[in-house]
């Protein structure tokens, strides 16, 4: 209740500031008020184009993120399990990881065959590193006793990977997946703003260039909402796999 109240206070402040053209360092005279934005939102919600933008963003996220999850977990497990793989892959990670996805945009546009693929590429890169790093971290923490226990019960290397290493690394991997989803959205938006033709980032930026200010705020809210929704989906999808942890914590 208090939280809803707090939001209402902020909305009221926003309403007053934009109605009276508040102007001290931060300017509200160009910012549409909540009522205008609300009306525009209803208009957008019934226009097909709005959903086309959302669809394109979600499609890119799905492709890039799906690819990042598979690549990230596979690379992470290889690095965590094999000294050689770690020595080969780690230098690349160390060099590429500090480069923000946004900085990849010019090169991605030059290298990739289409605008679509360059946006998907930088989104993929954004999601990839947190997933790799967390997977390596999780795999590194594999319990030696559990590996021994499994071996003495007749488990093969594959079985140990499947029954011991991966489940043990899973809490860390899931954390990486959630962070990766956040970074994926961040990177996607950067890509769409700079080089998109569709997508919610393009929608927001073109609203600015076309002086359709209410749509900026709608874009921002939708971006925030979709980002949270996707992160929530990732956590919910992984929750059944971590049931053992939750049950253990209860006791």
């Amino acid at each position: 209740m208090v939280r809803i109240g707090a939001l209402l206070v902020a909305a009221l402040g926003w309403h007053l500031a934009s109605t009276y053209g508040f102007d001290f360092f931060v300017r509200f005279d160009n910012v549409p008020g909540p009522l205008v934005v609300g009306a525009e939102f209803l208009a957008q919600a019934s226009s097909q184009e709005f959903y086309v933008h959302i669809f394109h963003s979600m499609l890119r996220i799905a492709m890039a993120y799906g690819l990042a999850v598979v690549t990230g977990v596979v690379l992470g497990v290889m690095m965590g399990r094999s000294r050689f793989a770690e020595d080969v892959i780690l230098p690349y990670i160390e060099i590429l990881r500090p480069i923000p996805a946004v900085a990849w945009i010019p090169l991605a546009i030059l290298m990739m065959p289409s605008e679509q693929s360059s946006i998907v590429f930088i989104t993929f890169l954004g999601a990839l590193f947190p997933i790799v790093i967390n997977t390596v971290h999780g795999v590194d923490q594999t319990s030696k006793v559990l590996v021994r226990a499994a071996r003495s019960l007749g488990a093969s290397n594959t079985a140990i990977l499947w029954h011991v290493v991966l489940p043990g690394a899973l809490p860390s991997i899931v954390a990486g997946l959630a962070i990766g989803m956040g970074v994926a959205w961040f990177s996607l938006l950067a890509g769409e703003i700079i080089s998109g033709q569709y997508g919610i980032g393009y929608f927001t930026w073109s609203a600015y260039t076309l002086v359709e200010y209410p749509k900026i705020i709608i874009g921002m809210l939708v971006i925030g909402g979709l980002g949270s929704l996707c992160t929530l989906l990732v956590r919910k999808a992984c929750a059944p796999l971590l049931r053992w942890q939750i049950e253990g914590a209860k006791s």
Partner: protein
Amino acid sequence: MMSTTRLNRAAVVEHPHNYRPRTTSGKGRISVRSIDIVFATANGPHPAVEDASLEIQPSEFVSLLGPSGCGKSTLMNSVAGFVKPTRGEVLLDGQAVANPGPDRGMVFQQHSLFPWKTVKQNVAFGPLMAGVGSREADSVASTFLSLVGLSRYAKAYPSTLSGGMQQRVGIARALANYPSVLLMDEPFGALDAQTRSMMQENLLEIWSEFKNTVLFVTHDIDEAVFLSDRIVVMSASPGRIIADIPVRLPRPRTQELLTTSEFMTVKRECLGLIREQTLRAFEQQNQAS
């Protein structure tokens, strides 16, 4: 709670499943032949076990006793196949031990259950790895859970169980492969005194049923005397075998045995040896630092 710690004899005798891949009778002869185990460390080679020889007959219950850090776990791990001797050889029924295998069940001190598997899935793991179908593995797991009196907890996760219950699951899991050898490294070391003595009686009951060869590492002299046919005493590091004490106390054994004079006689013999070695170990550690 205590009533559930009683051994469920019916479960063992009936064996409602067909899976019983190995006959354990007559198997499980362990021969350790003058082995050295040297670890390579940052400070150079570190001898953990020196010239150890040990013959264990099938179905014999042998305890390894010695001061902390003397190499008990290392010696046991060479039988398990986790550590290769630097010199000498370890044989199981005449075959050189090269790798860990399901014929040697292991029970660890603690935290060795798969936390992401339910109690029953933990016990079913060995049979599954042996290639029996999941239905069959499930039935084997039920049998062994009921053997250790934990059928009610089949669907629980290990972290929701007490330490004693977790160790019973660990024992059930090791037994579910019908191993000819059971290797136990301080399996009751983390339990309180009451639970511990209850577990000791349970273990003897199980052992009398399955007749596995047992190699049991412990710090606790009472425990070693109570359980064993023989007690092998190791010296301070590097571990050598300095005594092999037969325990000729009648079976079946119950806790009343602990107060008899025969028990005291064996215990005194072990105490003297252990004290001497522990003092030596202390002096060594002092010199080293």
